[in-house]
């Protein structure tokens, strides 16, 4: 009896963990493949690199993961989303390639040092983030509206930078960031994404940034009254988000060793917001979970790769994607959670306070 009680207790603890549902969703999407694509989880070394669907999921989700980290911070601090990240990626990719090519359309060797190009690209991206941050924190424009400016103008700026051409940097060294380091079987974007997640996690853990962002997100006025500079914290979160979009832009442009201003990071802002939501984070701001967003990003890419593996026709692809997303989002909605909690007979009463906490999450 005691054992059973204990078991139930643990089960409850697990199912009520904020990462439980996001993880279940990811697992379901991945396991769905076993039926149709038995070799989905097969990983082998082919031509000196890791080869398999799972590798594709991890590799292809890198940019989205980097964006999702920035989006999580912005969402938590300002209770709104930065919809310009895809365009900022294009700006960053354009600046990077343009510096490397020295203004030519296609080059076979670096015209300027690689480091300079990366720094210029990141500076441009951070500047975009600062612009968004200024509008949101100082002028108090709703985030979606404020970032709509760069969402539309960003690609235009990128076009201006590249003179409306697709700038090609056909140098093997430039393909490293989006490809493979010779002798290493793991794609480089994976390392970059892990690096970003670890770096941001350490910053959040070692400094008071996490606490500040969460308190500003929960109640900006109250935070100001206790002495936090809400404006500055919101501003910083947008700069970080812009900077990370810049990193994602460099990875994306390195993958195709060119700056395609029209297509780099297109529609990725929506996926990034979705990743944050799928991770169980509230889009209204406040407490957040970086791990949740990471899982959310993997789920989205796993879904895309799954649909490719299942040979879903291109014209039906968006429909299937939408259906799965609707199901996942519904599963994680507070209303649905409450419904489950009420219908499950076990521990109806004691669940209440935990549930309330869950909703704050």
């Amino acid at each position, binding site marked *: 009896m005691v054992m059973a009680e204990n078991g139930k207790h643990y089960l409850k603890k697990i199912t009520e963990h904020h990462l439980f549902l996001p993880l279940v969703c990811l697992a379901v999407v991945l396991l769905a493949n076993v039926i149709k694509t038995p*070799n989905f989880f097969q990983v082998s070394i082919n031509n000196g690199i890791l080869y398999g669907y799972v590798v594709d999921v991890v590799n292809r989700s890198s940019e989205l993961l980097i964006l999702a980290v920035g989006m999580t911070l912005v969402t938590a601090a300002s209770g709104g989303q930065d919809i310009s990240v895809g365009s900022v990626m294009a700006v960053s990719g354009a600046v990077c390639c343009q510096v490397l090519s020295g203004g030519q359309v296609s080059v076979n060797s670096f015209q300027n040092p690689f480091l300079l190009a990366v720094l210029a690209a990141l500076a441009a991206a951070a500047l975009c983030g600062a612009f968004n941050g200024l509008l949101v924190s100082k002028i108090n424009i709703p985030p979606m509206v404020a970032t709509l400016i760069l969402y539309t103008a960003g690609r235009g700026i990128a076009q201006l930078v590249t003179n409306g051409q*697709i700038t090609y940097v056909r140098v093997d060294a430039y393909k490293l960031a989006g490809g493979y380091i010779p002798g290493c079987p793991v794609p480089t974007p994976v390392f970059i994404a892990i690096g970003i997640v670890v770096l941001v996690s350490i910053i959040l853990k070692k400094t008071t940034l996490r606490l500040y962002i969460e308190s500003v997100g929960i109640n900006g006025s109250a935070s100001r009254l206790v002495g936090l500079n809400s404006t500055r914290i919101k501003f910083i979160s947008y700069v970080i988000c812009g900077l990370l979009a810049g990193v994602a832009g460099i990875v994306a442009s390195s993958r*195709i060793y060119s700056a395609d201003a029209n297509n780099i990071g297109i529609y990725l802002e929506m996926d990034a917001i979705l990743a944050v939501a799928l991770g169980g984070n509230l889009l209204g701001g406040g407490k957040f979970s970086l791990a949740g967003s990471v899982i959310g990003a993997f789920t989205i890419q796993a879904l895309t790769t799954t649909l490719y593996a299942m040979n879903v026709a*291109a014209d039906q692809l968006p429909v299937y994607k939408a259906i799965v997303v609707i199901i996942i989002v519904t599963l994680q909605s507070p209303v649905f959670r409450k419904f489950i909690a009420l219908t499950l007979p076990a521990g109806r009463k004691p669940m209440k306070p935990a549930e309330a906490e869950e909703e704050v999450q």
Partner: protein
Amino acid sequence: MKGKKSLVFLLAALLIIGLAACGGTSGGDAAAPPEDDANALIVVGFSQVGAESDWRTANTQSMKDTFVEANGYKLIFDDAQQKQENQITAIRNFIQQEVDYIVLAPVTETGWDTVLQEAKDAGIPVIIVDRMIDVSDDSLYTAWVGSDFRQEGDKAAAWIVENFKDKDPVNIVHIQGTIGSSAQIGRTAGLEDAVAKNSNLKIIAQQSGEFTQAKGQEVMESVLKQNDKIDVVYCENDNEAFGVIDALEAAGKTYGRDGDIKIISFDATNAGLTDTLAGKINYNVECNPLHGPRVEKIIKQLESGGTPDKKAYVDEAAFDATTITQADIDARSY
């Protein structure tokens, strides 16, 4: 205060000049010297989508090169920056300016009925280039000039049929363009038709690469994991082909002129032809952006009282990796 007064004066002066210009039929008026020129030249108003790609830039340049004063034309060019509102405004301006012909490269297919009716009422012939428009009344435009995507698809499919006569089955991977675009519909139809007619051809995978390099690569990576035997990859534009090449390279497959997997591509952009010359792409079908001369032909026909064909296609070439030369690439400005 003084500034305001002079502004009012300036506006009034502009208004008077404007009225004089509108009413002036004498042509000798000092205020309207352009009209004097315009009487001698054929005035063409061209509303272009924007400048989003090399192809588009070459398309614009072709118009600008054709409709020069030396040829007896005056071109009024308007860049709509990808917005239909801008194009509609531009057409209304052309009507106001009483141009002789309107050339429109539409950004979208629908929503042109009203403004084209206005042009028709004003008696100005409209020539559509590149994309087709969808209007309730076909008489709203005089002619259409563009690429025959279906024929491009047929050309590429014919190459496959010709080069794989003795092979059965021929496993084809089909990387489609953005679903619903006219280029995708035509090029897909060309291949599917050939597959229906030739029993040895088999499409083993079909997915959209959305006309981008990144998606082309991602889709190809996935396809490679399910299919071991691939003979042909049919990419619906050059960017997709670049992505496919990267995916094949990473998987250690041989491709192109000297490899196992043959690659078909479309558009024949400069970068695409460079890869064709390098033997990476086996067959590249051109999508010709030089619409200017074809449009001029229609205008000449109309000027002499003739009736041009409703649909006119530009001539398009195709390049085989075994026969292409550097001169072919140099001859193209795009």
